[in-house]
């Protein structure tokens, strides 16, 4: 919402400075986003008198002027304006000045061979309006040589952000009321000249859609002359960032911007028969004033005559019956439209307008007559004409809302004690009447107020939020209690454990392209309105996002990329917290002592995966290495870690070359993924650990070498040995593995046995060795001879 200081002063008697007004606007919740002084843009423009005007020797339409700009010597400029003549006073832009209406900097130049040292400017070039038929002509008493900005007067423009709950401040009048309540001046009462109609309204006006349009007030003014609006009106609109069009159009815009009251003026010549509000018919269309055609539905309210739609009610008028310079009879519409329906229609048509913004937020339902009177008065003053009687179809919903208030709330909710009398005064200044028992009547222009806390906000914001003292929250006694949940602690631990392994934590987008989502198992959640096709599907896996990050890093020349992310996967059954790590490029760079660079392999991923699972509290010793990792993996170099066939905690391995190709990555990538929510939660335990003292007796180590079938997973052998004598065998380490000429494998393990009470004798050791060989034999593993 933009408005000039002088406009504000139409409604507010004040001597306050721009800074003071701005500070108070901010303090009461009308956020000042900017203050612009148009005078700043006119630097370098001076009032100048044309001394001579001669034809340009080389161009018919140009003239060569000498002008006096108070610089002490005549300035020669070439000018194309038809009205340029000796003796007139205008505005000269000197070299170096930036033309507000064009944004370009003036320079000395030669135009068709004649030197030009500046530019005599039109209204449009000065950014003061649309007029561009000739150069601006100032009155004869304008001081030659003075800065034009000073002559023009400084009228700073405020740009204020209005929150959606304050339709009353979508007009300068409402802003003035708020400022006056905040003590910044005196609110000027509205003086309305109610012009009586001199003839009956020549056409019927009615509302056939009382839901969408509860009230439609209108009248005709005949004999109007529509031309450019007067300068003061143009200035107002320009300060608000609007383009002046014609008096009739400008007047309706002015009433909207000044009072927050949208209205519409139809060229009566384009209207056939009655004018009424109704629902549109499905398939009906309307070409709006922006030149676009809109397809309407039966959910939308329109203003139509017997033949066609003239207005998308409350949003934008139709091109067909818009006022033009030939308009002589005008039909004024001041209506009340249902805010919800306006919003729905506007969204459905994707059509934004100043009128919609106000109707959608709720205009003052008691302002229809006032609005119509203001419009009529302005039109008669500016365009002349003769008004008809007013037709009032329907009734606006203007039930006054009553709220039971307790002034103590200012302190108990607002945190600041304000005397009741002061509160009553503030509310009154804002238009709220209150009786002795504190029943408060809400003014019709405040649709946002519907409960006592709203009134607290009113009195507290006007009183000043700065006056609220900080009050400490009550503290529980002693040291703060721990608050983190087991899941939160687990996630924090996993994150720091992963970083401690040398991985860098990344955060990648939650959304993927469809292609990436398909590579990650296919997405369920597809956005209706993605930012781009690359961000369309909620990720079913963290891997695609990380692989894309790997590619970007490799493309930037990284030789080693170690990333992990903790975040959600989005599946049909909900969100699943997940950790994925990726290892790409060199595991170790080439080194003087280790030679060639080494790539990552699946065991790097396995080691990290197991380490992280252990940190996350998973029962790592019970995990089984199984197959069935999904299709992003190399089928022969990947595995899952499970507690049972159905309980998959993690997967790891090398990425499938086809997947790498899709992500444009060359070179192997090792990855691991942990389904954090599949890790069984540990029971809350006491701090004390199980009792333990290191065994007094030394452990015994024995080596066994087995010949096994090549298909036997080594893990099965280790597990079998470890399980064959749990009382004694505390560790099994596979330390040697090689392929024998016949295709079988030789696996050598070191078995550690820990005696408890007494040392092993030969018999005990032999018995244990037999148990090891027997357990191994069940898997087909034979002791090597």
């Amino acid at each position, binding site marked *: 919402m933009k408005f000039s200081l002088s406009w504000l002063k139409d409604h507010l008697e004040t001597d306050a400075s721009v800074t003071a007004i701005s500070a108070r606007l*901010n*303090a009461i*919740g009308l956020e000042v986003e900017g203050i612009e002084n148009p005078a700043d843009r006119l630097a370098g423009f001076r009032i100048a008198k044309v001394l001579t005007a001669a034809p340009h020797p080389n161009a018919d339409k140009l003239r060569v002027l000498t002008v006096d700009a108070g610089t002490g010597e005549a300035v020669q400029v070439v000018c194309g304006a038809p009205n340029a003549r000796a003796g007139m006073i205008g505005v000269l832009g000197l070299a170096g000045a930036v033309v507000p209406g064009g944004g370009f900097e003036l320079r000395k130049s030669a135009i068709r061979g004649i030197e030009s040292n500046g530019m005599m400017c039109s209204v449009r070039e000065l950014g003061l309006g649309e007029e561009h038929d000739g150069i601006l002509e100032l009155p004869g008493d304008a001081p030659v040589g003075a800065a034009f900005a000073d002559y023009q007067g400084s009228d700073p423009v405020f740009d204020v952000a209005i929150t*959606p709950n304050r339709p009353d401040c979508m007009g300068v009048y409402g802003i003035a009321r708020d400022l006056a309540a905040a003590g910044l001046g005196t609110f000027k009462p509205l003086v309305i000249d109610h012009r009586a109609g001199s003839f009956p309204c020549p056409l019927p006006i009615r509302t056939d859609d009382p839901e969408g349009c509860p009230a439609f007030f209108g009248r005709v003014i005949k004999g109007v002359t529509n031309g450019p609006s007067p300068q003061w009106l143009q200035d107002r609109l320009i300060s608000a960032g609007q383009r002046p069009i014609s008096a009739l159009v400008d007047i309706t815009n002015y009433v909207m911007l000044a009072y927050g009251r949208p209205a519409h003026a139809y060229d009566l010549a384009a209207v056939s028969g009655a004018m009424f509000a109704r629902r549109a018919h499905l398939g009906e269309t309307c070409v709006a004033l922006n030149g676009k055609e809109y397809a309407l539905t039966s959910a939308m309210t329109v203003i139509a005559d017997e033949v066609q739609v003239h207005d998308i009610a409350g949003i934008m008028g139709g091109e067909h019956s818009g006022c033009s310079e030939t308009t002589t009879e005008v039909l004024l519409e001041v209506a009340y439209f249902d805010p*919800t329906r306006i*919003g*729905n229609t506007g969204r459905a048509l994707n059509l934004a307008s100043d009128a919609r913004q106000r109707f959608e937020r709720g205009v003052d339902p008691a302002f229809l007559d006032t609005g119509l009177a203001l419009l009529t008065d302005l039109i008669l003053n500016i365009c002349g004409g003769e008004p008809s009687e007013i037709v009032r179809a329907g009734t606006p919903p203007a039930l006054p809302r009553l709220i039971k208030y307790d002034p103590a709330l200012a302190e*108990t*909710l607002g*945190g*600041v004690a304000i005397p009741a009398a002061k509160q009553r005064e503030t509310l009154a200044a804002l238009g709220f009447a209150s009786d002795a028992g504190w029943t408060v009547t809400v003014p019709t222009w405040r649709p946002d107020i519907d*409960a006592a*806390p709203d009134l*607290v*906000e009113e009195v507290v914001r006007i009183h000043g*939020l700065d006056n609220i*003292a*900080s009050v*400490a*929250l009550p*503290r*529980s006694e002693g040291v*703060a209690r721990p*608050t*983190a*949940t087991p899941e*939160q602690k687990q996630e*924090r631990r996993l*994150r*720091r454990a*992963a*970083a*401690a392994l040398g991985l*860098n*934590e*990344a*955060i*990648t*987008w*939650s959304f993927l392209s469809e292609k990436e989502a398909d590579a990650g198992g296919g997405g369920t*959640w*597809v*956005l*209706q*309105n*993605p930012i781009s096709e690359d961000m369309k599907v909620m990720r079913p896996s963290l891997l695609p996002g990380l692989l894309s990050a*790997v590619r*970007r*890093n490799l493309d*930037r020349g*990284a030789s080693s990329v170690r*990333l992990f992310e903790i975040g*959600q996967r989005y599946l049909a059954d*909900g*969100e699943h917290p997940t950790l994925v790590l990726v290892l790409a490029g060199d595991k*170790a*760079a080439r*080194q*003087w*002592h280790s030679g060639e660079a080494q790539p990552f392999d699946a065991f790097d991923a396995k080691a990290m995966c197991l380490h992280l699972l252990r940190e996350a509290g998973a029962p790592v010793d019970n995990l089984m290495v199984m197959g069935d990792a999904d299709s992003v993996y190399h089928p022969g170099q990947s595995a899952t870690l499970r507690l049972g066939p159905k309980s998959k905690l993690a997967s790891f391995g090398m990425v499938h070359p086809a997947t790498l190709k899709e992500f444009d990555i060359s070179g192997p990538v090792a990855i691991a993924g942990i389904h954090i929510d599949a890790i069984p939660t540990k029971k809350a335990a006491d701090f004390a650990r199980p009792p333990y003292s290191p065994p007094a007796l030394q452990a015994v180590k024995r080596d066994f070498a087995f010949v096994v079938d090549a298909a036997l997973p080594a893990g099965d052998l280790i597990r079998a040995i470890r399980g064959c004598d749990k009382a004694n065998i505390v560790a099994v380490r596979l330390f040697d593995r090689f392929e024998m000429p016949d295709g079988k494998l030789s696996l050598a393990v070191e078995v550690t046995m820990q005696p408890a009470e007494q040392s092993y004798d030969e018999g005990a050791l032999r018995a244990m060795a037999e148990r090891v060989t027997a357990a191994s034999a069940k898997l087909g593993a034979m002791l090597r001879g």
Partner: protein
Amino acid sequence: MDYAATRDEALARIAGTHDLGALESLRVEFLGKAGSISGLLKTLGAMSAENRQTVGPHIHALRESVSTALSARKTALETAAMNAQLARETLDLSLPAPEGLRGTIHPVSQVMDELAEIFADLGFAVATGPEIEDDWHNFTALNMPENHPARAMHDTFYFPDQTAADGKAMLLRTHTSPVQIRAMIANGAPIRIIAPGRVYRSDSDATHTPMFHQVEGLVIDRNIHLGHLKWTLETFLKAFFERDDIVLRLRPSYFPFTEPSVEVDVGFALVSGRRILGGSGDAGGHGWMELLGSGMINRKVIAAGGLDPDAWQGFAFGVGVDRLAMLKYGMDDLRAFFDGDVRWLQHYGFSPLDVPTLSAGVGVRP
């Protein structure tokens, strides 16, 4: 026999040995079972007592001298041998050692941990909720009924193919505020929580990303008012930025879920182009920047959470986590947060050992 000459000759020969093998041969020659000095010792047994008294000390002295010399020579030779070996083993220690790895914690995670630590001290727990929400939790329960103009301002991502079991439309949460509702329904009152997490808006330009992070704060109790909100925000920001000169400016604003609603600005100084928080925004060379949205929870929201708004009241606030991270640690490009550039992560990331604690200060200085 000239014991002195024998001794001198033996000592000279010992001193003349240069390896341990030769020394051992000498030891055997002199002191071995059949050694020359051992032989002399054996003769003592056959001597007369008188003779033994005369000769014995000479022989013993000879044995002692030779034995001592052998031992000393052995030590010397061993030391020389070790020194020679050590000399051979000398390394060029200016050669580079294997590089250790330095993993990092993302700034967003680090800041979330910092927030959790600060607010835990104030009695706040951390709550979470789903990112794919239904429109009731994200909007309706927060006093944004269908058709509410504020809904349109949220630039919401929708999922047209899914509806909740009860027919609610599904969307990506536009703020962490739905966690308020979930916390009220799940735990009742009183409540003190913060709810950090990912949020989404269909907005993408130089300073906006369609995904970002927010933290929500919620306090519901019997007698909570705006003064408590102001104190909580001041206390939190002072602890977070580890500055006592943080100054807040509260401005009335509008959020459907709070009433009264308060926008919170924080004062900063412009120091060589960077905004450094601290001081009043009205002071010279200072300014205000918008940082937080907050307010007293709307009665309708408390009721939607299943609580009695006549019995309970409280405040809520929301702030961008990425924004807090940028202000504290000096990043200036939000998009880089989500790029996974290892160089950026190494520069702006944190050591896993930088676990925020109150005793050490929750922040990490470079």
